[in-house]
């Protein structure tokens, strides 16, 4: 018995010594984690006083390395700040879990401002600093500040953005056939009729995207709404005040139906629209025997094209914006992009410095030069973009007065999802149009 006790006592003493050492080193290390900026890490002198800013976003893959290259510019100018970006495919889920658990990053980039708006409403975000707001006022059109304003306060800013509503075509084939970009919706429909008589379908379309299937369809409806309704009416629709089952919104669906529901107007008809993957459908323009003449998609579509097409974009690809539908309505531009917000309690000086830098033209240069990304900053040098197509689109974006955020992404989460599901049900024949519209409305709490 006695021997056992001695053994245990010896063990305990040994453990206590160990933990005593632990208690000493513990403190400075812990405080450097909390990021107060004053702590030093004794074992890594190279990192002395380096302040870390964590950023969480949905930008992954090739775009992630482009973003990191842009960040490197900032870090070069501010050697004392280390920006750590984490890209996550399941960003929407992850940021939710982190916010619930109180383990938030310093900055989050919401691809859907609805998510950021909800966080702002729950008091989880820090409003932007007055200096940053001033810089936004100076460097952006007013619409971008409004898009980052939730509950009446500016919380978010935009950096890389995209614009939707473009119709893409295979330039050599399109020109060889003698087609011209249409200036009105009626001209577009006439062009579709002409194309229907060829062996190639007018449009390639696919809205498949796992459990987000349908978002591509919502883009169509939004661009049509921006050409048939006043901006005020569009805003009411996004806010959930204008119901789906109304003549205004139904008209947008039937307008789209002129293309989607015509089995000869879309490659493979409704079945293909419902099942084909979004990125896959874009490739149809450049198949060895092209599947279609036209493809509707946002500015980001170029990354879906085959590599040899991307290499010589200006030679291979042509683009025009969806033509006006109602002559009385000045077409608005549907835009999208990640909104950068700062979490509550994370508004440290180094975070502010990074956010302020994002509003400047300098922050766009490196990323624009790599291609595939557009920026809304005023006074940027369009020569930085690699292709004429990007220059055209960037110019459209920077000068857009009547820009509206991608409607479904800005809607309340339950309405956004119901919109996806509803349009998928409609095109797959699961519900007829009236049922689909009613079901979307029913999702609203």
């Amino acid at each position, binding site marked *: 018995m006695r021997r056992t006790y001695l053994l245990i006592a010896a063990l305990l003493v040994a453990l*206590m010594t160990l933990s005593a050492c632990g208690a000493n080193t513990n403190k400075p290390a812990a405080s450097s*984690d909390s990021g107060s900026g004053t702590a030093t890490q004794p074992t890594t002198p190279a990192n002395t006083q380096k302040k870390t800013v964590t950023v969480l976003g949905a930008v992954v893959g090739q775009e992630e390395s482009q973003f990191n290259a842009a960040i490197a510019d900032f870090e070069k100018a501010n050697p004392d700040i280390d920006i750590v970006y984490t890209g996550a495919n399941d960003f929407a889920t992850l940021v939710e879990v982190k916010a619930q658990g109180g383990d938030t990053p310093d900055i989050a980039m919401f691809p859907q401002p609805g998510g950021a708006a909800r966080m702002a409403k729950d008091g989880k975000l820090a409003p932007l600093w007055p200096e940053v707001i001033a810089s936004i006022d100076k460097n952006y059109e007013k619409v971008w500040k409004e898009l980052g304003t939730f509950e009446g306060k500016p919380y978010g800013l935009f950096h890389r953005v995209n614009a939707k509503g473009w119709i893409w075509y295979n330039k050599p084939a399109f020109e060889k056939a003698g087609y011209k970009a249409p200036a009105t919706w009626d001209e577009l429909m006439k062009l579709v009729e002409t194309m229907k008589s060829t062996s190639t379908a007018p449009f390639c379309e696919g809205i498949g995207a796992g459990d987000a299937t349908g978002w591509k369809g919502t883009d169509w409806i939004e661009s049509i709404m921006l050409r048939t309704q006043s901006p005020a009416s569009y805003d009411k629709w996004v806010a959930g005040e204008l119901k789906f089952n109304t003549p205004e919104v139904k008209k947008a669906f039937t307008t789209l139906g002129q293309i989607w529901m015509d089995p000869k107007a879309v490659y493979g008809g409704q079945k*293909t629209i419902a099942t084909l993957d979004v990125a896959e459908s874009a490739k149809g323009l450049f198949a060895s025997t092209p599947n279609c003449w036209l493809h509707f998609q946002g500015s980001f579509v170029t990354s879906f094209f085959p590599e040899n097409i991307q290499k010589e974009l200006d030679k291979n690809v042509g683009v025009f914006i969806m033509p006006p539908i109602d002559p009385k309505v000045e077409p608005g531009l549907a835009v999208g992009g990640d909104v950068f917000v700062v979490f509550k309690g994370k508004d440290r000086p180094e975070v502010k410095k990074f956010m302020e830098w994002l509003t400047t033209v300098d922050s766009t240069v490196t990323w624009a030069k790599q291609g595939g990304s557009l920026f809304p900053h005023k006074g940027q040098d369009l020569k930085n973009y690699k292709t004429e197509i990007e220059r055209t689109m960037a110019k459209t974006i920077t000068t857009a007065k009547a820009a509206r955020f991608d409607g479904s992404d800005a809607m309340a989460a339950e309405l956004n999802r119901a919109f996806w599901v509803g349009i998928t049900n409609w095109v797959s024949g699961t519900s007829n149009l009236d049922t689909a519209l009613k079901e979307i409305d029913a999702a609203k709490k």
Partner: protein
Amino acid sequence: MRKAQGILSVLFFAAALLVLEQSYVYLRDGQIAQWLRALLAIIWGVGGILLLFTLASNVVEQFSPRWKRRLVPIVFVGPATAIVIWYLALPAVRTFVASLYDANGKNFVGLANYIYAFTSREMLLSFRNNFLFWLIFATIFSVIFGLLIAVMADRTHPLFEKICKAFIFMPMAISMVGASVIWKFVYEYRPAGAPQIGLLNAIVTGLGGEPQAWLLQQPWNNLFLIAIMIWLQTGYAMVIFSAAIKGVPAELHEAGRIDGAGEIQLFFKITLPTIWGAVVTVATTIMLATLKIFDIVQSMTGGNFGTQVIANVQYTQMFRQFNYGRAASVAIVLLLAVLPVMYYNLRQFSKRTEAF
């Protein structure tokens, strides 16, 4: 002396707790190499538990035999029970509470979320799919195929049996999402005239038929998803049945044959009743999996085209619509649906183990 020893043992126990807590803090924040930290953490975990149990039983040793008998189970089963309560029972209660509150968990809404869970089209569709399609078809076919293969394989050359079973068991090594990726290619649809890259449509068009969008054809698309589950679960059923069949005494079959029974009669009158316990266990286990099915639906159709299931509703309510109340109520409904099967499964299991 006895009393002193008692106090000493309690003190040791308390000291050990303190030391473990402190060394935990050291391991978490200390500046040590990653491999050393991992090694120390393992020693901390395994050694710490050993130490705590030794010291705790030491404390119990000091009591009178009567009290000792009462306390020993608490010392040894108590921590495990506490962990289960903390990580399982309490969250379940909290989920139930959340199910009575609104989307943000702020306002009490009574049973409103349960009205959604039992009357919305999405949930009614899920009930149909879960109970009518998944539960019945996936379970029955996995069991039948498993049984068939186990019986057939039992009668072939041992080497051939091993090879066959290895192949059929292989899908078990694939995750449900992995299996879905494979089967997406099987069901892939391209318009008529275009080269079919999906296996099934390649066969159909090869035989002169029209290509079909398999995943769009309601309600059959549920069966196409269930085929994936059967493909995954047959191997599991087969392995258990195979082991059970090997345990059927050869004398029983001999006796049956002498009495003039045919092979089919032998199977239904002798083999099946003998392994019935295994059949029930496998069937209930697969039933549990089908009620909770999520991965296959999420990755194949995302719940679109009439293939929605309960677990996917829970996921979309939580992570797409951020409606905690509804998500919680759906989780509770799923829990209630699973409980009877689980109870039956456990009862069968304890019956069997008692029988042995």
